[in-house]
C-alpha cells in the first residue's frame, strides 16, 4: 500500500469511528438550503431560479466545516510529525488526507444534492448534470481547502482566517458550478462547463498538494 492510500484508509477509518464528521456537513447543507425556502418563498418556480446559487453556496460552506481539523488534529497528537518524518513525500500524505476529506464531505454532499435540489424545485432530469458538476467541483473545493488548512496550521483558532483564505480561491468553482447547474435545470447542454470544472479540478490536483506540503512543513516548525 502506498503512503497516500495508507493515509486515506486511516482517515476513513477515523471518520467511521466518529460519524459526526460525515453527518454534520450534510445536515448543515440541508438546513441552509431549507432556510432559503423558508426565508425567500415557498413558490417552486421562484426557488428554481435561485437553486444553483443555493446548492453551490451551501455545498461550499458545508465543505469548509471540517477543514479546520484536517491537519490540526494530526498536528496536535503528533501523528502529522511522524508522517512527515517517515521519509514519504509530504505531498503524497497531503493528497491522501485531501482524498479522505473529499470522500467524507465532498462525495456525501454530492449525493445529497438531488434531495436538496428536489426541495428547491429542481426537475429530476437535471439531477445527473448537477451530480457531475458537484462531484468535480467538490474535488477542487477539498484541494483548495487543504491548501488553506495547511497554511493556517500554525495559527491558533485559524477557522475564520481559513475561510477568508479559501473562499476567494473557490470563486471560479462557484461560478462555473452554478452555471452548470443553471444549464442543467434549463435542460441545455452543459458539457463545456463540466470541462471547465474538470480542468479546475486537475489544476488544483496538480498544484494544491505541493503548496500544502510546503505549508505543512512550515506549520510544523
Amino acid at each position, binding site marked *: *500500500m502506498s*503512503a497516500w492510500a*495508507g493515509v486515506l484508509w*486511516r482517515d476513513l*477509518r*477515523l471518520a467511521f*469511528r*466518529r460519524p459526526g464528521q460525515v453527518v454534520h456537513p450534510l445536515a448543515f447543507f440541508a438546513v441552509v438550503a431549507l432556510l432559503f425556502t423558508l426565508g425567500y418563498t415557498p413558490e417552486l418556480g421562484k426557488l428554481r431560479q435561485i437553486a444553483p446559487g443555493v446548492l453551490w453556496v451551501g455545498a461550499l460552506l458545508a465543505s469548509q466545516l471540517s477543514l479546520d481539523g484536517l491537519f490540526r488534529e*494530526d498536528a496536535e*497528537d*503528533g*501523528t502529522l*510529525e*511522524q*508522517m*512527515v*518524518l*517517515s*521519509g*514519504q*513525500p509530504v505531498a503524497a500524505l497531503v493528497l491522501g488526507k485531501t482524498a479522505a476529506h473529499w470522500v467524507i464531505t465532498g462525495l456525501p454532499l454530492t449525493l445529497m444534492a438531488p434531495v436538496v435540489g428536489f426541495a428547491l424545485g429542481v426537475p429530476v432530469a437535471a439531477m445527473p448534470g448537477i451530480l457531475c458538476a458537484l462531484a468535480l467541483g467538490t474535488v477542487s473545493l477539498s484541494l483548495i481547502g487543504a491548501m488553506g488548512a495547511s497554511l493556517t496550521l500554525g495559527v491558533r483558532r485559524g477557522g475564520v482566517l481559513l475561510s477568508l483564505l479559501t473562499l476567494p480561491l473557490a470563486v471560479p468553482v462557484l461560478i462555473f458550478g452554478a452555471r452548470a447547474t443553471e444549464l442543467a435545470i434549463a435542460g441545455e447542454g452543459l458539457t463545456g462547463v463540466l470541462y471547465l470544472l474538470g480542468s479546475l479540478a486537475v489544476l488544483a490536483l496538480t498544484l494544491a498538494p505541493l503548496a500544502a506540503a510546503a505549508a505543512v*512543513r512550515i506549520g*510544523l*516548525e
Partner: protein
Amino acid sequence: MVRFTYTNRYPRDANSTVRYKVLEVIDLTLCRGARPVLSGLHFAVAPGRCLQVLGANGSGKTTLLRALCGLLEIDGGAFRWKGGPVEPRSPEFQKELVYLGHDPPLKGDLSVAENLRFAAVMRGIPRLRRGEAVSAALREADASRFADRLARSLSAGQRRRVALALLCLAPAPIWLLDEPVTHLDTTGLALVTRLIEGHLQRSGLVIAATHQDLGLPSQARDELVLSRRAA
C-alpha cells in the same frame, strides 16, 4: 550567549568517521524567531553510543532534536552522516532515524495495533510482514496486553510504552528521544534501558534529551550540556 560543555569520549580521527555510522553536527546554529537558541554547536555520536542531552528548561534540548530530524530548519552549520554531508529533510536520511517527541504520537480513536500498523505502512514495511512486525514491536515494548484497546483509553504510562513499541517497529540506526522515560514506572524505566542497550549493541546510536538516569553503563554514554548565560 550560549555556552556548551561537551565531554567527548569519541576519538577525533577523521578517517574513522568514514567507516562507521557516525552522526556529526558541525557549527550548528538554531534560532527561534530572531532569538538564537543554540550557536556554534559541535558534536559527534558514534555507533553504539548514547548521547544524553542535558540542560535547563528552555536551553534548546527539544529544538536540537527537532532540528536533527529535519522538522526545524537550521540557521547555520551542517550535519554529516556516515562520513558524508547530509540534508536532514532528505527522505534517505529520514528513513535512517526515529524521532519520539514529548507526547506519544497516537491517534486516540484507533486501537494500539491500528496505530502501529499505520506507522508500519508509513515506514514502508511490506504488507505481508506488517502484522508480524507490529506484534513483535508490541512484545518488545511489553505492550501486547493492550494491543486491542483504543489509544485514548490508555494511561499516560501505557501510551509511553506504545511509543516505545513505535521505536522497535522498523530498524533505524538513529534514535532521537525527547524525554523517553516520563510517566514510566520502574519496570518501564528498566525497559527503556534494555531497549537502548539492545539498540546500542546493534551499533545504533541514540540521542536522548532527559535529566533522568537512563541506567546505561558509563562507557556507552556521553553527555552534552546545553547551558544558557545571561547576555
